[in-house]
């Protein structure tokens, strides 16, 4: 069977397709990058162990199920500090120092607010904004309905837009 997950080539392509998304998924939830990477390793190790039982087209949902189960007992109420990188500082010329400072301030407060979001909202928000995932894809990863995703996204945006008023 060409699609046998136990085949090195197939397994490797599954890894390269999903590992980063999975890592990000966990990171948005926990804020712990090292732990996220470890859990991704664990999930794939499990997939390998059970490669005979998992059809290729079910691999992604199998992997995400493992990830979700890992977090069932974790503390969901901790504040989380996330570190992101800033992509290209284009269009900075022509902007006044005061404006740039305001932007910086706004970003910092926004980061804090994202970290303070309840885990479920934060995860949806970041999967949408950082990983550019559509609601349908997020719904699949989380094992919930699209409507449920939209509700969480709405709540996240409602909370975050309060930051704007402050600046």
């Amino acid at each position, binding site marked *: 069977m060409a699609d046998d997950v136990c085949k090195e080539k197939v397994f490797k392509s599954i890894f390269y397709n999903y590992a980063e998304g999975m890592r990000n998924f966990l990171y948005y939830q926990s804020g712990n990058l090292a732990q996220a990477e470890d859990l991704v390793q664990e999930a794939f190790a499990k997939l390998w162990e059970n490669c005979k039982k998992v059809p290729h087209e079910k691999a992604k949902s199998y992997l995400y199920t493992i990830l979700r189960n890992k977090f069932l007992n974790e503390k969901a109420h901790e504040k989380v500090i996330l570190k*992101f990188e*800033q992509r290209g500082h284009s269009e900075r010329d022509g902007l006044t120092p005061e404006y740039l400072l305001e932007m910086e301030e706004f970003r910092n407060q926004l980061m804090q607010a*994202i970290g303070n979001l309840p885990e479920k909202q934060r995860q949806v928000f970041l999967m949408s*904004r950082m990983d550019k995932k559509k609601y349908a894809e997020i719904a699949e990863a989380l094992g919930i309905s699209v409507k449920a995703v939209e509700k969480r*996204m709405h709540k996240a*945006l409602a909370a975050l837009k309060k930051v704007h008023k402050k600046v």
Partner: protein
Amino acid sequence: MEERDTLYARWLSGDLSPAEMAELKASGEWEALQAIIEATDQLELPAMDLDDAFAKLKKNQGRSQANVRSLPVRWLAGIAAGLLMILFSWYLLSSGNQTIQAGLAANAGHQFKDGSKVILNDGSSIAFQDQNWEEERIVKLTGEAYFEVEPGIPFSVQSRQGRVEVLGTRFNVRSWGDRLQVECYEGQVQVVSGNASIRLGPFESALFGQGQLLDTLSIEHDRSLWEGTEGVSRFRNAPIAEVFQELGRQFDIDIQINTTLDFPFSGQFVHRNVETAVNQICRYKQELDCQYIADQGLLVVK
């Protein structure tokens, strides 16, 4: 069919009715939402090194055959003379090479063929040849371990910074960065690091750095009286700078020391939580003003 509880989400996915859109713009919410999206669009996570991660996965798959497992060690605490360690380990022999690793939050213990014993501290590992143990007793150490050596042929502990040779004794070796610290509780140990060499007797300790002897002191605290397996770092009359260094290593944070305070510290900090640990150290002296900045992983000491 107003679904107000998904309004902003649908705005983002372009799923609003014209009326809803007009309302958002009029109320000024549109501006605020737009600002969030613009700000977050600029952010990204560090790219994941997939080649590296896949290689690691493959490596761990191969290793799962030769498993070295050890059970946590329980100490009987507080009895001065005749303190016994009950330690048990359970392992599968591979081809004679043995590597034992203590993960985080567990101390690993092992008993060698000749009855000598070792306890590893968090994140440490040792490697040794089990097969020719009757001819040679050499242990390579990364991190920190406590040894009890049965009399016999020379027993040598090698770390990056130097080696410790003993004939039959109890001692603790801690190796990290370019430092090596050895504490002897019983018997004698010979420590060699770079061009420096020293012989330690009971309750003597030496600190080496960069191949030089930095400090010797006498110790009042026998580490073999460790209690339990919860990760804790204990200090007796240790220079405060060292305590902070250990804290930095344990939690992988940076320490910025803006003070010239230098005094001996006696006490401990736990490994379970960084804020608790910082408090445990900083309340030791009133003049210590500590500020832990979580999102930078930085501790500032004034």
